[in-house]
């Protein structure tokens, strides 16, 4: 084969690759690369949507970190969500996954019951929980009251709003259940038999056989959970809006975070700054903080010892 035909063959194969990749190449450029560059640009400008942007140095950055009253509360909330909500979801997800592998009668029915809430659209599920947990007439407090137990204010009480959101998140645990179930069924059965011959107790079998075998999946669940916690948007915003009683698609303004900033998360700040205060530049600063955090954990997912998402071959 001559070098000429070889080269033209190579060119053809490069063109073919470009053709197959083209939808994403355009999408990547227009909906990712360009707006990322633009976000960085605006974060150093002063821009409210009218007139031309003017250079503003680091003012937006110092404003967000030092003077914007919602920034640090939202980071603290995110940390709380990472520590409590993610832990609860992983622990219960694993528990439910283990339970379903042991259930022998009506397995399909149980699995469907456990899985269904994951499918509930977030706005609908949030609305349902605000109703279930509403302090006055909600069924949960009605039952707690009848049992003589304390009846918390849930979404209307700053110290109970995040636990209420955690319950909502644990309710929708179906995704983790399925992943853990698949992982548990992949644990070699011989290892359990060997452990049993050695007289291992139930806990020892879990600790020394189950856990080492599924630890990559646990890590995957934790890291994706952290990423989801940082992106947490619809549920806390809708819960706050509905519980506060201030709603209106385009009418009244609702300051996110009700009650008392306890449900604020970073993505809500982008909305608050950009679309309620029309301070596009400061919104871009928060967007970049969010970006940095999300990418740090994504890198962990790809680079980790276990190469959790198989980016290679």
């Amino acid at each position, binding site marked *: 084969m001559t070098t000429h035909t070889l080269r033209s063959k190579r060119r053809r194969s490069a063109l073919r690759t470009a053709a197959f990749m083209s939808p994403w190449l355009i999408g990547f450029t227009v*909906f990712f690369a360009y707006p990322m560059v633009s976000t960085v640009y605006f974060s150093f400008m002063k821009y409210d949507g009218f007139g031309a942007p003017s250079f503003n140095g680091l003012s937006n950055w110092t404003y967000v970190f030092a003077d914007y009253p919602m920034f640090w509360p939202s980071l603290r909330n995110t940390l709380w969500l990472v520590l409590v909500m993610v832990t609860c979801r992983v622990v219960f997800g694993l528990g439910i996954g283990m339970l379903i592998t042991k259930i022998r009668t009506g397995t399909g029915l149980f699995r469907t019951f456990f899985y269904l809430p994951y499918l509930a659209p977030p706005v609908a599920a949030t609305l349902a929980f605000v109703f279930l947990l509403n302090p006055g007439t909600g069924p949960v407090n009605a039952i707690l009251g009848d049992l003589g137990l304390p009846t918390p204010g849930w979404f209307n009480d700053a110290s109970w709003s995040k636990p209420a959101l955690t319950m909502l998140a644990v309710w929708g645990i179906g995704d983790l259940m399925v992943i853990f179930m698949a992982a548990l069924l992949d*644990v070699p059965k011989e290892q359990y038999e060997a452990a049993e011959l050695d007289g291992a107790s139930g806990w020892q079998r879990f600790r020394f056989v189950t856990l080492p075998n599924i630890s990559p999946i646990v890590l995957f669940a934790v890291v994706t959970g952290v990423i989801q916690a940082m992106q947490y948007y619809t549920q806390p915003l809708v819960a706050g809006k509905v519980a506060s009683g201030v709603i209106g698609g385009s009418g009244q303004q609702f300051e996110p975070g009700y009650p008392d900033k306890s449900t604020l998360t970073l993505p809500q700040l982008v909305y608050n700054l950009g679309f309620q205060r029309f301070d596009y530049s400061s919104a871009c600063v928060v967007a970049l903080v969010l970006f940095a955090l999300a990418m740090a954990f994504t890198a962990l997912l790809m680079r980790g010892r276990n190469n959790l998402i198989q980016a290679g071959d």
Partner: protein
Amino acid sequence: MTRLLDTPRPVAAADGPTPAERTARRKALLHWIAVHSLGIAAALFFVLPFVFVVLTSLMSDQQALTRDLTPNTWEWGNYRRVFETPGFLTWWRNTLLYAGLGTVLTVVSSVPVAYALAKFRFRGRKLSLMLVISMMMLPPQVVIIPMYLFWAKQLDLSGTLWPLIIPMAFGDAFSIFLLRQFLLTIPNEYLDAAKVDGCGEFRTLIKVVLPMAKPGIAAIALFQFFAAWNDYFGPQIYASENPAAWTLSYGLESFKGAHHTDWNLTMAATVLVMAPVIAVFFFAQKAFVEGVTLTGVKG
């Protein structure tokens, strides 16, 4: 489902169970009872919220204001009243347009990309894949300011759902990634055989790969449909100014605003937003669960 049984099944002996066998059998029974009681308790936690929502949706206006758990009279007319609420049918239509058209565009644009990433060897493939994963993990709020300015100020499309639908014609990161994971499981021998028969890459994709990739495509179509159905942030940013462009997920919240004390109507509307998703799930259960496992992990 029975692979993890840790209680060995006792072997029946010809001359009746020995005492040791009897203890083993009793232990197995106790284990069965413990596991299934726990299962029922968990099932109650997952199902009761649905039950209370449906029960409340059937209460009369007066009773919905009380602490009662079950309706005294069953007001099925509540559902009719929800449908008669101005806008509700428009939200349905908009949601179907957003979810339906968006899903078709996503599948058509993501399949060739996923195929290239799974089966072609080219420089920059690994980098592309890492960028796809990064985009998948990117919160939509990160790029929303420039994107909003682009759609609203340059193309004058705010107040419509087009800023949400059009991007789906250019590949969706999550769908590309999920489908690529699926295509990796198709042995190269099939593709080579097609090429020996004289098929180009495009024909190989259409004739050989697509029929084999049906479960993967079903999974991304379902996920994309649900993502659009559930989307709140997108319609909030682009459609909030124009109620004629609202979707169910966005409109549902304002429904609560318009009927603030009528929990019965709000819960009926909630049921009507949840029901289609759950119905679709029952028809496509297998594809769905397969998809969830795929996004997970091959590790």
